[in-house]
Structure formats: structure tokens, C-alpha cells
């Protein structure tokens, strides 16, 4: 509510107006479409003149300041939606300024969804599943008092968190065949993503397990539970609700990091975005389409994640 109070102070609104005016005057809006709308006031030959710059910036900054002042009057949710719509509109304006060919996008989008998104999702889901298994093993090993297990686990997390994921993709795809294990692009990509994210998630799982009070261990052990039984029946059921939200975050991050496996020729979304438009010199069309698809996917997942989080917070 800080903004609402600020916007009700006249000096602040005047300062805002002045700031926009100076900015727009310096940028010089007199050559844009907006200046054409003001042609009656400026005169048609005024382009570039100080007068034209002055008139356009006075008007435009007034419109912007009025808009902000009006949004300030709205309720929180209405503010949110309005800001979203304005930002989306500005983005559309930005994208259309590339003069995109929508027929070309239309002709390719189905293939991008059926081949690209499907492969991206497939790689991400398989990788996050394997990564979760690695993370449980890694976390248990890191927490154990066994020096071997701890050494292996900490080496694993240090190595795979310490190298760029792109390099891991190359090392696995190009390195393993040199050792005699010929590996396809898709399994190589999945392996790289699983190992890397498994290392990150080991830390998430370890923190989740460690956050369960020591008394739970002691109570279970004093009844005669062995380590594995305590973990399975007492500790993990309490730790998993804590682990799931950050794991969801990791999944959304992985969805986008899976674009890195495009470098080894997996036909996922990023690969298609780079290649489909090449022949016709329509790079921007495909890149922007893929960007939108990634964004939509992430939003859907974020929505799903917030639902899961709410469910576990209740439970």
C-alpha cells in the first residue's frame, strides 16, 4: 500500500510527471507514430524540432502519469491485472515491431508443440524422477556417519554443481563414446540433466531431512526402529511435504535448462526454434514462438505448484 499513499501526494505525482517529461524529451518521441497522432498540434513539418519534442513529451508523460495515478486508485487485485495487461500489451507491441510472419508461425506451431514440447516435457519428467532418486540417496549418504558414503556424496554434489550444465551435456555425449559406451542423444541429455539436478536436489533433500527434529529420530530409534525403517516411516513422510515445493521449482528450472540438450541434436523445443526458421530466414518467428511456449508451460507448472503447496500446507 506504499505506492497508493505515495500517489496521493501531489509533490510525488508532479515529480513523477517531471521525470517522465525529461526522459521522453531526451529520448525524442517526435519521429514516432505517437507524434503523428499529434500532427494537428505540431504541424506536419515539425518533426525533429524542439517544439515537436516538447509537445510530444508533455502529452505522453501526462498520459503515463495519469495512467499510473488511476491504477493507484484501484484495489490490489485490479492493480495486478491492469499491470499485467499493460505489460502484455507493451510486449505485443515490441514483438509486432519485428514484422513477424504469422502465417509462417501458424504453419510450424503444431510441429513445435507435438514434437518440441512433448520431447521437452518427456526429457524433463524422466530427468526429475531420476534426479529425485539420486537426491534421496545423496542426502542419506551425506547425513550418514559413514566416511565412504559421505565422501562419495559430497564429491558427487561438488562436481556436478561445480561444472556448467552445458559442459556436462558435452562431456557425457562426447566423452562416454570414447570410453566405449556409445550413447544416443536423448539418453545422454537425460543423464546429464539427472546428474546435475540430482546434485542440486541432494542439498534440498538433505535440508528437508535435517529440518525434522532430532527427537523424532530418538523416539523411533528407542522403540527399536532401524535406520532405514526410521527414514521410511518417520522422517521422510514428514520431510517430503517440505521437499516438494522446492522440487517443483527445480522442475520448472529444468524445463528451461533442458534447452541445453539441443546442442547435441535432440529435437526438443529449443532445437526446433533454432532450426525450423533457418531455411526461410525466419529466426525471430520461431524463437519468439518457442519463448512463448516455454513461458506458457512454466506458468501452467507454477499454477500447479501453488496448488500442491497449498495442499501440503493444509495437510
Amino acid at each position, binding site marked *: 500500500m506504499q505506492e497508493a499513499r505515495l500517489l496521493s501526494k501531489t509533490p510525488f505525482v508532479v515529480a513523477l510527471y517531471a521525470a517522465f517529461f525529461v526522459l521522453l524529451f531526451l529520448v525524442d518521441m517526435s519521429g514516432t507514430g505517437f507524434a503523428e497522432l499529434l500532427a494537428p498540434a505540431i504541424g506536419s513539418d515539425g518533426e525533429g524540432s524542439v517544439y515537436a519534442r516538447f509537445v510530444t513529451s508533455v502529452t505522453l508523460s501526462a498520459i503515463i502519469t495519469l495512467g499510473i495515478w488511476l491504477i493507484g486508485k484501484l484495489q490490489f487485485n485490479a492493480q495486478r491485472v491492469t499491470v499485467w495487461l499493460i505489460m502484455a500489451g507493451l510486449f505485443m507491441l515490441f514483438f509486432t515491431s519485428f514484422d513477424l510472419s504469422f502465417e509462417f508461425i501458424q504453419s510450424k506451431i503444431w510441429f513445435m508443440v507435438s514434437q518440441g514440447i512433448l520431447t521437452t516435457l518427456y526429457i524433463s519428467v524422466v530427468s526429475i524422477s531420476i534426479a529425485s532418486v539420486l537426491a534421496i540417496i545423496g542426502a542419506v549418504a551425506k547425513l550418514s556417519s559413514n566416511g565412504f558414503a559421505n565422501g562419495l556424496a559430497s564429491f558427487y554434489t561438488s562436481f556436478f554443481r561445480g561444472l556448467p550444465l552445458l559442459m556436462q551435456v558435452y562431456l557425457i555425449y562426447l566423452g562416454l563414446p570414447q570410453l566405449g559406451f556409445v550413447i544416443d542423444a536423448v539418453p545422454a541429455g537425460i543423464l546429464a540433466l539427472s546428474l546435475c539436478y540430482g546434485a542440486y536436489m541432494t542439498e534440498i533433500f538433505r535440508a528437508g531431512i535435517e529440518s525434522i527434529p532430532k*527427537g523424532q529420530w530418538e*523416539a523411533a*530409534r528407542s*522403540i*527399536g526402529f532401524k535406520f532405514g525403517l526410521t527414514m521410511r516411516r518417520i522422517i521422510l*513422510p514428514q520431510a517430503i511435504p517440505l521437499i516438494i515445493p522446492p522440487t517443483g521449482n527445480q522442475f520448472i528450472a529444468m524445463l528451461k535448462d533442458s534447452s541445453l540438450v539441443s546442442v547435441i541434436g535432440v529435437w526438443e523445443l529449443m532445437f526446433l526454434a533454432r532450426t525450423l526458421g533457418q531455411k526461410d530466414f525466419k529466426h525471430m518467428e520461431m524463437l519468439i514462438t518457442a519463448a512463448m511456449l516455454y513461458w506458457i508451460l512454466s506458468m501452467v507448472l507454477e499454477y500447479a505448484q501453488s496448488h500442491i503447496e497449498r495442499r501440503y500446507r493444509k495437510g
Partner: protein
Amino acid sequence: MNSVHKPDVAVETAVKPAVKPIVELKDVNKWYDDFHCLKDINLTVTPGERIVICGPSGSGKSTMIRCINRLEAHQSGEIIVDDVVLHEHMQGIDKVRSEVGMVFQSFNLFPHMTIAENCMAGPMWVQGVPKGEARRLAMKYLEQVRIPEQADKYPGQLSGGQQQRVAIARSLCMKPKLMLFDEPTSALDPEMVSGVLDTMIDLAKEGMTMLCVTHEMGFAREVADRVIFMADGEIVEENTPGEFFDNPREARTQQFLSQIL
């Protein structure tokens, strides 16, 4: 609480050499890094004995009973529980633990399980008791601690005193040969204390072997066969409750009693 003195019972158990001890600590020492927290502890517990352990905080009393089910490891000396010598590389510590019940200051119920499931967990998953029978067992002991109606609630829905009684029932479901109590009433609101103490008194009257770290002196007077006073990691005085409270031998005991009574 009526204070029945039973010094003669204690004397009897103390002189009976034929009874085999259930717990024996011989010259037990323990260090936390440089801190010498248990110093040459010697203690023998015979079946059926009720022992109250008291002393200022940091005196090692909790550490001592936690060594008996090896939640803490001792570094020298010998601890024997029901003929099993506890040591670093031993197999089957879980079996020993399943025969030694433990009640904690902070209850430590499993929050994701119902009260009945808390009680059934040990019998089912450690002893392999079928579910139906485990449930009957759980209800039996929940009745004994007088909260059978709470069986299907979760620990978070119960008061502290009720939770502690569930914790006692959970231990009893394992049919332990010995119960360890680590300040069971210290975390409770005052009005909750008597419910837990009554449960412990019932248990004592049924002949359960008990080692209780507690400052509840009424409880000590009523049920204890022996009171052990610890300070700075040592057992300073061991006495019958009557003698301990009315006629303590050691200066440190007198000082401690003057502070708490």
C-alpha cells in the same frame, strides 16, 4: 498425593544378592570433547526397582539414562542391559532398545500418525504383530493411560499432558522390561503434571522397573525405592527416599534440596 514410605522394600532389594540385575553400569565414563560429563558411574538396577535420579541441570543425569539405550555412546566402562553388553560395533542394539521404553521431555510423538498409529508402529514394524492385534494392544494401553477416546486424533490436537501419556502408552506397547523417563513432566503446564504422574505411579504399582530423571519430589517419596543424586557427572548420594529428603548425608545434596524444596 499420599506419601507412603517404603524404605524397608529398598533395603530388601539391596541385600538380596540372588536377583540378577537388569541394568548394570560399571565405571562408566563419557566425554563431550573435553567436557567430562559422566565420571566413573556405577549403578545396578534389579527388576522391579523404581529409581529416581535428580540433580542440578548439567549434572549428567539425562546423559546417564540415555546411555542405557545407547542414544548416547559411553567411552569407557561397561553397560550391561538384560545380559547384553553395549559397545560400539554391537549388532542388535535395536533389539535392546525395543525392550527398553523411553519417555522424553518433549514427548516426540510422530505428528503425521494418529495416536493409535503412534502406539501401533513399534509392535507392527519392529515386532511383526498383525495390524488388528496391534490395534487391540494400542487400545489396551491407551485405556491404561486413560485416553482411549483420543485414539484417532493426531498428536497436535492433544494437550501436552495427553501427549505425554500417549508417549508412555507407545512405549508400553512394546512390552518393555524397563522404562526410562527423561524429565517427563518438565515441559508440561502445571495443571497437566498430575495426570502424567498418576500414570507413572500406576505403572510403578504394577511392578514396572523404572528409572526416572525428575524433580517431582512427591513422586520420588511415593514410589521410589532409591533416590540417586548426581552433580558434575558423578553420583554423589544414593539413598532411600525417606533418608534422602529428611536426612541427606552429603553437603551438596543438602544444598540442592534447600534450593528446590
